[in-house]
């Protein structure tokens, strides 16, 4: 990075607000110029344009665009130290995070094929290993809770869940 680039970055008081503003600006532009005109159907005849299914999404998209610009300006001009302290944290190991993502995927990919109990056990064991939980008997919870909660949902609360592998 050249020294002029560094100077440009230093001029931005809050880089996170600035970046968020840019991303939201792009999103609102896509919404206003592409998604709303192409993915919201409109009846051919309408007495009042304010009755159109596109009217409110259009207004909201343009307002989002305007406020994204304001957020960019806020990022350029205002440094909010208190807020940035809250937003920052010390990152943990990547391994824990990756195992958490795998546990999420286990739920979404196998919930219906393996059933609620087996996916529950599998994902909970994975998350215990991610931390890792070192007390062996705690792993009993990874079996007891999915079984107990599934049966509670299905038999007591009458909320259907896939029980067993299909």
């Amino acid at each position: 990075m050249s020294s002029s680039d560094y100077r440009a970055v230093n001029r931005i008081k809050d880089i996170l607000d600035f970046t968020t503003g840019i991303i939201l600006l792009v999103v609102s532009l896509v919404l206003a110029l592409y998604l709303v005109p192409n993915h919201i159907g409109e009846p051919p005849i309408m007495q009042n344009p304010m009755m159109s299914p596109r009217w409110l999404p259009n207004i909201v998209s343009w307002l989002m665009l305007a406020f994204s610009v304001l957020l960019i300006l806020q990022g350029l001009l205002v440094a909010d130290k208190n807020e940035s302290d809250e937003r920052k944290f010390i990152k943990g190991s990547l391994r824990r995070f990756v195992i958490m993502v795998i546990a999420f995927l286990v739920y979404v990919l196998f919930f219906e094929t393996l059933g609620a109990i087996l996916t529950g056990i599998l994902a909970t064991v994975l998350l215990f290993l991610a931390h890792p939980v070192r007390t062996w008997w705690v792993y009993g919870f990874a079996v007891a809770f999915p079984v107990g909660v599934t049966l509670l949902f299905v038999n007591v609360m009458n909320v259907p869940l896939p029980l067993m592998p299909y």
Partner: protein
Amino acid sequence: MENLNEVLQLFLSIDNFIAIALGVVIGVTVGSIPGLTATMAVALALPFTFSMQPVAAILLLVGIYKGGMYGGSITAILIRTPGSPASACTLLDGYPMAQQGHAKKALKTALFSSVIADFISNIALIFFAAYLAKIALNFGAPEFFWLICFSLTIIISLASGSMVKGLLAALMGILLSLVGLDSVFGSQRLTFGNYNLMDSISFIPLLIGLFAIPEIIEFYRKKVVPHIKAKASGAGMTLAELKRCMKSIVRGSLIGVIIGAIPGTGATAAAFISYSDARRRSPNRDNFGKGEVEGVAAAEAGNNGVAGATLIPLLSLGIPGDVITAIILGAFMVHGLTPGPIMFQENLSLIYALFLGIMLSSLILLVVGNAAIKYFSLIADIPKSILFPIVLMFCIYGAYAVNNATFDIWLMLAFGVVGYLFNRTGIPAAPFLIGFILGPMFEDNLRRSLLIGNGDLSIFVRGPITWFFIAITFGSIAFALYRFFQARKQASNARQLNNG
């Protein structure tokens, strides 16, 4: 008399009593565990209420709400970690008291003032909700349109942190609420041909995703922090101390009631206003911030005075006062009920059965709260490494149970990522949720007004009620701008002082 019989029939069911007690226990338990919030607990409990009777279902959620409000103060006092933002004020005096060996006294003070404030708030709810609903019966679509505009402005303007981010969050919420089939023309809006989206985005996966999943992601993303153990030791609160605090408790409760009745203001503001009011009036004002029992009482009275009062706009006008009442509104909808003035005409017995249950919840809070003080160390010592995998399981089961579709699990996880990004970028989730709920109401009342007025825009200024709402809407915007520029001025003055 016939109504009374019906009310008692609805209320005197064992299910209702179990629901209230269970709700308060869950609320206090969750509230007393740092990292878990009452909002998360209410969102997770919502799928469990699908098969319950409406009264028991709502009472379960209200019980969690009230229990959570008190539970948040336990960690604030013992380990200087407020369980909810509203309990932040309690730690100002509660934690120093715990440090001085008076943890039990602080916890008892918090409990008694919470219960008294909750009771006063419930009385206000019973008196004002019916009265307000009676007035609201005169409202038509244009009046409701302006009422929703007012609710949107006040919620956004009081969003913590940046006003711009609050507005952006609310706009995103409104936009997402419009996904699905258009209610008037039936045309598809941003569904991309996906039949799962035709009936709009499901409320429960959005809710769970937004408020529970980000905590889980953050836990696995963050560096592991050591688990802090806490103990509630020392003597309890004496009657003389309770008497001394009584004025502050009553004043704080009334402050909570007034603030809670205004949509969007929230318990945090009430707690701090009540605290500063008590500090100003107390003969022991110099001891505030150093472990003053009156400080704990005032903060807790302010924050719990809000709980019943936030239900006033919800029940009488159908407008959620805060995030938790927005979830409770969702529960009403799940059970085919629409809160508002019409409900007071069509389901009066149900409303009075709810009122009885809400009154009972104050009493149960006293019993459960006492037990929580005793057995707190057991509850708070559950490590998050065990807790969060189980919470995630509840999230997944709850999201799936809505439509029996894996799509909702995807949706929930996607909103979880959105919620996590919101946390990281400082965008508040509350205006997003309120925007999501009020968006369709806004559009619906706008269109109905246009249809009633045959497209003539003068219908929006048709009488004194609309003028009143227009005035308070613009007043609210002006107040928000004033607060914004005042805060900027104060920050710049502080910077100049630091530099000079």
